[in-house]
């Protein structure tokens, strides 16, 4: 375990950035967003969560898949994949760090998504413990410990010190590069800090949200519940909740005529959109109720059914904070869960 003075973080970032892109939360019109570090950017480690999650680093909102050249009746396919250069993501919160494991189960299962895989292999994740969680946070409900945030390197930022602890081989390699900037960490000081913030997490309002009643076998019990109608009634299908969510993985594949050929790309899509499942023969999810139900059933029932009971929500609270009609997964859990009657 190591540490560095907070005042010297600029040096640390410069050193990391010297050996590959460094992505971290930066100021963006009064919000924070993951962006590339340069000496000029305003780093924001004080704000808890970026508006969009860190999934962009591995599963960007749009990405080119391949190109095509069309000549008469002939087609040639251009594999545009390039080896991904090593990069580091700094300041990832425990919830987002846990979301990578959830995306891994989708994209790294056979057949492996090589676009995602190459970024995943090239990226080193430096997490940051949450000292000032928001009232919308409920990661602990999913067994995530924001005091020990995981990743390749875990960091803790106190008023004057950043503590640095490598957890993996990738973390060791990064530590090696910055080691001369670090000094031996004060274990007692770190422990004191961890205890202090643990106490704050203990008092979060959503701490006792119960997931009882939600699991891979709950489809029958939950699917036809009448409450879905009321829960989804005001949903405008804007898709915000899916776009800010670190674990939402749905995508579309589309073609674009560049004038010099055809570019096939993929982009995030949303099960909240009315044409998501529209076919020539009709649409199995005709109203917003079915689409709304799909999103939450996927997170709390379908994903667990296919993934050893693991939920596809990390309690980051983004959908809670951002939904224009204030509908969210917490209300769904409270309404349909077995044990949440206030």
């Amino acid at each position, binding site marked *: 375990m190591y540490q560095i003075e907070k005042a010297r973080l600029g040096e640390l970032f410069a050193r990391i950035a010297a050996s590959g892109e460094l992505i971290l939360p930066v100021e963006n019109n009064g919000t924070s967003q993951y962006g590339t570090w340069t000496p000029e950017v305003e780093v924001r480690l004080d704000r808890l969560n970026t508006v969009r999650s860190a999934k962009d680093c591995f599963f960007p909102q749009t990405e080119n*898949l391949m190109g095509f050249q069309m000549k008469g*009746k002939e087609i040639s*396919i251009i594999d545009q994949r390039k080896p991904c250069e090593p990069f580091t993501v700094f300041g990832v919160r425990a919830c987002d760090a846990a979301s990578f494991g959830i995306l891994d189960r989708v994209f790294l299962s056979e057949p492996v998504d090589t676009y995602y895989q190459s970024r995943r292999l090239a990226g080193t994740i430096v997490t940051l413990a949450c000292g000032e969680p928001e009232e919308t946070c409920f990661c602990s409900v999913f067994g995530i410990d924001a005091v020990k945030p995981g990743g390749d390197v875990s960091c803790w930022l106190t008023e004057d010190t950043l503590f640095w602890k490598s957890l993996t081989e990738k973390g060791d390699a990064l530590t090696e590069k910055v080691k001369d900037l670090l000094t031996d960490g004060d274990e007692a000081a770190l422990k004191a800090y961890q205890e202090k913030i643990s106490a704050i997490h203990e008092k979060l309002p959503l701490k006792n949200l119960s997931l009882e009643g939600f699991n891979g076998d709950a489809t*029958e019990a939950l699917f036809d519940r009448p409450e879905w109608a009321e829960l989804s009634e005001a949903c405008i299908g804007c898709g915000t909740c899916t776009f800010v969510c670190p674990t939402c993985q749905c*995508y579309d*594949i589309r073609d674009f005529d560049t004038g010099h050929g055809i570019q096939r790309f993929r982009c995030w899509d949303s099960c909240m959109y009315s044409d*998501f499942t529209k*076919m020539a023969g009709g649409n199995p999810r005709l109203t917003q109720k079915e689409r709304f139900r799909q999103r939450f059933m996927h997170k709390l029932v379908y994903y667990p059914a296919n993934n050893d009971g693991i939920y596809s929500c990390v309690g980051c609270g983004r959908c809670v904070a951002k939904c224009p009609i204030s509908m969210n997964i917490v209300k769904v859990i409270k309404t349909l869960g077995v044990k949440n009657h206030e």
Partner: protein
Amino acid sequence: MSNLPNETLIPHIGVVTDVRIDTPDVKTFRVVAPEGGVCFKHIPGQCAMLSIPGVGEAMFSITSSPTNTDFMEFSIKKCGCLTSWLHMMEPGQQITIRGPYGNGFPVESDFKGKDLLFIAGGIGLAPLRSVINYVRHYRSNYGKVDIVYGSRSKDDLVDYNEILNEWCNEEGVNVYLTIDREQEGWDGHVGFVPNYVKELGFDTNKTAIICGPPIMIKFTLAGLQELGFDKTQVFTTMELKMKCGVGKCGRCNIGSKYVCKDGPVFRCDQLDELPNEY
């Protein structure tokens, strides 16, 4: 980039070598790899993503049998952007193709040694044709074969020549054709498939395979149950909107099952376990 790992989203080139007009809105396309032969191996009931770059990409059943290693065939109904484009193709046109996707029919397990009853409506014959020709190829591995096939009119029967010239004349294969309404020049059966199946009254020791529009599947299944069939003896295929074909784009699920990878073939009792959203 030859050292990069295989990526299923990156397609192969296929060359259309033959186009057959089956019905006013269905054409069957023969597709080979540029170096000849099939683009990849498959099992009956599996599908492939076909695309014209710049137009679109969509899923189609491989209607040829895997025993045919010279080419693949697709029977495609014109109903939108990509399918209209495909219908304008002439031999020599290249397309892109990726797959095979889906589970396919249990031709080497559940179907083995069984009497098979195929029931198709309209373009629903496409996936069944692959199984039927596979079964004909390995004839001794299977029992009797009955085929009930219906469509709106006699002009809408896909693969009509192959049915009349080959299937109808084969030992141990019975073909029953029907069209929805009376038509000049048709002296065969008239009526909807589900009713015809009930009239014919099949032995309940058979394994049934139904494919067609959702409404036809629903009524045929009910008819078979009236005859005494159990849902565990009946197989069908599902059709949902698809993009990736490999359970990742999140589009084609019914409950926790992805039709592109856990389907499109389901046993009817397994469908019962899924939420009613298809």
